[in-house]
């Protein structure tokens, strides 16, 4: 039979304190998130009508809707993702599966890590110099999407490498031992087993793309652009577009006489776009994870 000792009680007390402390920290992270989302949605709800989503801004952005900005944001996300996802994933495959451990690989890895830490406004200046001026794209969706792609590349490479590294080495060894080439191993074993992690990493970058203002402001987003009619195909890739983040910035700081709920409604829409994409990522993850075999 166990009798409770002094040290035993002390241990239990510590256990309780630790548990409470860590629980509180978790709550401290969740509560502000809920507060922010709740506050923004609550304040913006009166302005969020069908007309708000589907029409063009009017009267200098103080009335009307956000359709061109919403479409512009989707353009930027899609085009930048089409550039950064293939390059990022393929580069990560090379770095993780093919590259030998030498000074070159080490430099590349170091560059990737450091690039991920570069502030977005610096990426914006780079995009302005490289794409807008040097390559003569002008301020355009293309230049903005390329800038965003470069900004998200290092993170996509890092998360993809992580996903590839999580496939146990024994899987690869087993495959090699039955005579498979490196490419066969990657295609049939490594990629299928890491695709959920790769996709999650890629899609999570979308939220960052959607929210960025500084880099796109310099490279391809106009504060206002008159659009005729509606529809999805509002922009040519060589023109500038509007974007939700920039529109929010404008309405909040420059537009005089814009109702307060307008800026909150735009913020809520931006949050909605991000949440929608992230939910897709989570569903992907759950779906693919369920088929993982270890």
């Amino acid at each position: 039979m166990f009798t409770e000792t002094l040290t035993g009680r002390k241990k239990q007390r510590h256990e309780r304190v630790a548990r409470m402390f860590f629980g509180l920290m978790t709550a401290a992270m969740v509560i502000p998130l809920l507060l922010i989302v709740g506050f923004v949605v609550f304040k913006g709800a009166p302005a969020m009508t069908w007309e708000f989503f589907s029409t063009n801004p009017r009267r200098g952005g103080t009335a009307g809707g956000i359709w061109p900005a919403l479409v512009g944001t989707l353009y930027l996300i899609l085009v930048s993702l089409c550039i950064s996802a293939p390059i990022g994933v393929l580069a990560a495959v090379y770095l993780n599966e093919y590259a030998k451990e030498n000074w070159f690989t080490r430099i590349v890895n170091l560059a990737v890590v450091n690039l991920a830490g570069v502030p977005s406004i610096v990426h914006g200046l780079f995009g302005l110099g490289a794409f807008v001026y040097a390559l003569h794209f002008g301020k355009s969706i293309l230049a903005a999407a390329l800038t965003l792609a470069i900004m998200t590349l290092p993170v996509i490479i890092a998360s993809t490498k992580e996903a590839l590294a999580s496939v146990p080495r024994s899987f690869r060894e087993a495959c090699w031992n039955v005579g498979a080439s490196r490419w066969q191993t990657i295609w049939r074993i490594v990629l299928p087993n890491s695709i959920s992690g790769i996709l999650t990493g890629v899609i999570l970058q979308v939220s960052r793309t959607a929210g960025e203002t500084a880099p796109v402001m310099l490279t391809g987003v106009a504060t206002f652009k008159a659009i005729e009619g509606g529809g999805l195909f509002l922009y040519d890739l060589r023109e500038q577009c509007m974007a939700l983040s920039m529109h929010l910035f404008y309405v909040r700081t420059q537009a005089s006489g814009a109702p307060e709920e307008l800026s909150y409604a735009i913020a809520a829409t931006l949050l909605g776009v991000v949440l929608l994409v992230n939910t897709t990522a989570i569903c992907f993850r759950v779906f693919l994870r369920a088929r993982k075999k270890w």
Partner: protein
Amino acid sequence: MNVSIRSKNLRGAVLGLVPVLLATGCGNSGGGPSGDSSADTIANIGSDTMLQLAMAWSEAFKLAEPGVNVEVNGGGSGVGIAGLINGSVDLANSSRAFEEKEAADLRAKQGKEPLGVTVGFDALSIYVHKDNPLQELTLEQLAGIYSRDGAIRTWSDLGVKAIPGAQGDEIIAISRQNNSGTHHYFKEAVVGKKGVLRPDCVNQNGSADVVNLVATTPNAIGYSGMGYRTDAVRILKVAKRAGEAAILPSIASTLDKSYPIARPMFVYTAGEPAAHIKKYIDWILSEPGQSLLAENGYVPLPKQ
């Protein structure tokens, strides 16, 4: 066995992505029919003061002339002029005149002369909180508040006893960031060319920002365009010097030049404008374009 099934699914997924990539690729290179009209895009950048006006123009012009896209951006008069100099801007909005040095830069870089058109006027208004009892100021008093060597630092220096809700007596002077044309003009008109603004001004990045801050700060004073007035702030009358009548900014008092701190607003092109830009400028100067000035709180050009 499992492995082969999975890899088949993966292949399906990748193959499914290919058309998507191709489609975007085509959209990219082909550009479509709308690509041909991209020659009729006008990059219109510059003054924050004129931003809302420029947006209203762009919006209305689209209805009048659907083939021309006007892309509007703010940032400040300096940003528009800098863009004109390095060739990224077709039409620069400016709430101040081109400076000689900037004109020289434009000549050196592009071999073109800046070509400016006055499109209207902005009556720079002095804003205080709605509970502030002060009614009028002279230009000298304004200089005393805003210049580095000025003597007016508290509201009691102006004879204002107490402002309801204000903490302390200190005047919080709100100004604009230094690439703003409004900042340039205010400094020259009030503090003088050689004068220096007080270093502890609270700088705001937008015209509406200034008014919003005044609205929430009872002991603040700020300057911004006449069109940015809200119910939470009041506009002061301004007199040229002590003893003269103080005038409220309005269309009439701007046009007869009795209001002392009103300035012209310009649009600039580098050299002769292309046909579609010329059309846009002409439209701005015509009745539909000018009517938008009064609607947005600016002063239209006098009718001939």
